[in-house]
């Protein structure tokens, strides 16, 4: 290793916002799946039974939305998709096979991370909107049965996409060594930064001078 100091990738507030959102998302996914398929109904045990799961899920959903909005406000700027990302995207197959020699240099996030970000922006907003429509006993009675039927399908589809995206997100963090430390302790090694986010690395270096 070189003697360069570790690089800060996520500040304390970034990390706290991320993990609050992450915990809420997991609770939402588990309680939501419990009410989606009988195979998952046992998950209601973690929330105090079926009725408690039904009561808690939407309230936790509001917290999830608020937490995610904070997260999105912090991370949104660095998640705008650039031309370099599109070039990088053409080499996705190589990236997945761990062949990184020809990958174009990119900024703080790669195209996959950015797609995850925007997927969650869209699905969480859809989940919130459709969730309000089916929220018993408070809001659902205000909507017509036709709107409620559309909302349950939108809610299920958006949840599927969001949970699938998060499974991929968690896997990517486990796969790319050094990522989990980045989000738990905030810092990455210079070699990690150069290998995965060379453009971002150089920006950080420039600022440091």
């Amino acid at each position, binding site marked *: *290793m*070189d003697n360069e100091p570790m690089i800060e990738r996520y500040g304390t507030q970034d990390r706290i916002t991320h993990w609050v959102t992450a915990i809420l998302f997991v609770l939402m996914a588990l309680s939501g*799946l*419990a*009410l*989606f*398929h*009988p*195979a*998952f*109904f046992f998950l*209601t045990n973690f929330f105090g*039974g*079926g*009725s408690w*799961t*039904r*009561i808690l899920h939407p309230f936790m959903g509001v917290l999830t939305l608020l937490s995610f909005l904070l997260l999105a406000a912090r991370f949104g700027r660095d998640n705008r998709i650039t031309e370099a990302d599109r070039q990088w995207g053409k080499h996705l197959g190589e990236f*997945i*096979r*761990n062949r*990184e020699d020809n990958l174009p*240099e990119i900024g703080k996030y790669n195209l996959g991370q950015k797609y995850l970000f925007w997927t969650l922006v869209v699905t969480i907003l859809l989940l919130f909107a459709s969730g309000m429509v*089916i929220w*018993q*006993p408070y809001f*659902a009675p205000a909507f017509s*049965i036709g709107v*409620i*039927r*559309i909302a*349950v*399908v939108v809610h*299920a*589809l958006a949840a*599927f996409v969001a*949970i*699938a995206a998060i*499974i*991929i997100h968690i*896997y990517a963090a*486990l*796969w*790319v*060594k*050094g990522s989990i430390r980045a989000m738990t302790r905030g810092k990455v*090694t210079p*070699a*990690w930064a*150069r*290998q995965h986010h*060379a453009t971002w*690395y*150089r920006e950080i*270096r*420039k600022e440091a*001078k």
Partner: protein
Amino acid sequence: MAQQSLDIERRSATTTPSPNMRGHVAEVAKLIDISKCIGCKACQSACMEWNDYRGNVGTCDGTYNNPFDLAANQWTVMRFTEYEPPGGNLEWLIRKDGCMHCAEPGCLKACPAPGAIVQYSNGIVDFHEEHCIGCGYCITGCPFNIPRLSDADSKVYKCTLCSDRVAVGLEPACIKSCPTGALVFGSKDDMRQHAAGRIEDLKSRGYKNAGLYDPQGVGGTHVMYVLPHADRPQIYAGLPKDPHISPLVSLWKGALKPLMSLGLGVIAFAGVIHYVGVGPNETKDDKSKVDKSSEHRDQ
């Protein structure tokens, strides 16, 4: 509540067989002959008495509908319609509304709580409120707008077809109270036969479109109507002409439920395969190459 002597055909949110060892149960049906109903509401009172609920005092909306709508504590209501047939006299249509006990119940299909909704082998669709979680999905699934969520306990309620009485060989309370014979109860086959006689009589009296309402879109129902105008069920306070479980509900609780659950499992498993196959993405300390580019930029 479950009745020990009644076989169960299916239970909500359950993928294994239901208690169903007898296998010789006849389907029952309630037949509502609209041409004989005088709108006395004795059935409403009998339902309240047997099932021991009391509706809230409501308001008058200027019609004879009283109470105005179904509720968690109002499982059947008379719906009154003033109907003028083209070139004919005024007809006062009175339809006793309540659960139709569908052969393919949308409520049961939508319900996420195991055993909260059961369909007995005799055709009765019953809510077991002690298992109900109050999500209201049954309301979303019902093609007839029947289940109601209680303000008192966040459980859904509806007509049970007096499953407790039927289990011990009695007829439903509403049937017992009907003074004109507009309500009859028996095996579904017998009720069809009885209806055929009534329809013949109605036709002989000029109701050429008289017929039986046993909608096949929901697999038939265990509450059937004899309608003098069976070609236009909508005139009877919006009785749907071709009720069926909404395609959105079928998609949600049909294809999406297993496919998306499986999909999530496949995605997670693909991660395992990828990790084992390709290995982790380690940070390579290839200083010479990476440093070159950064030096180049730093100059």
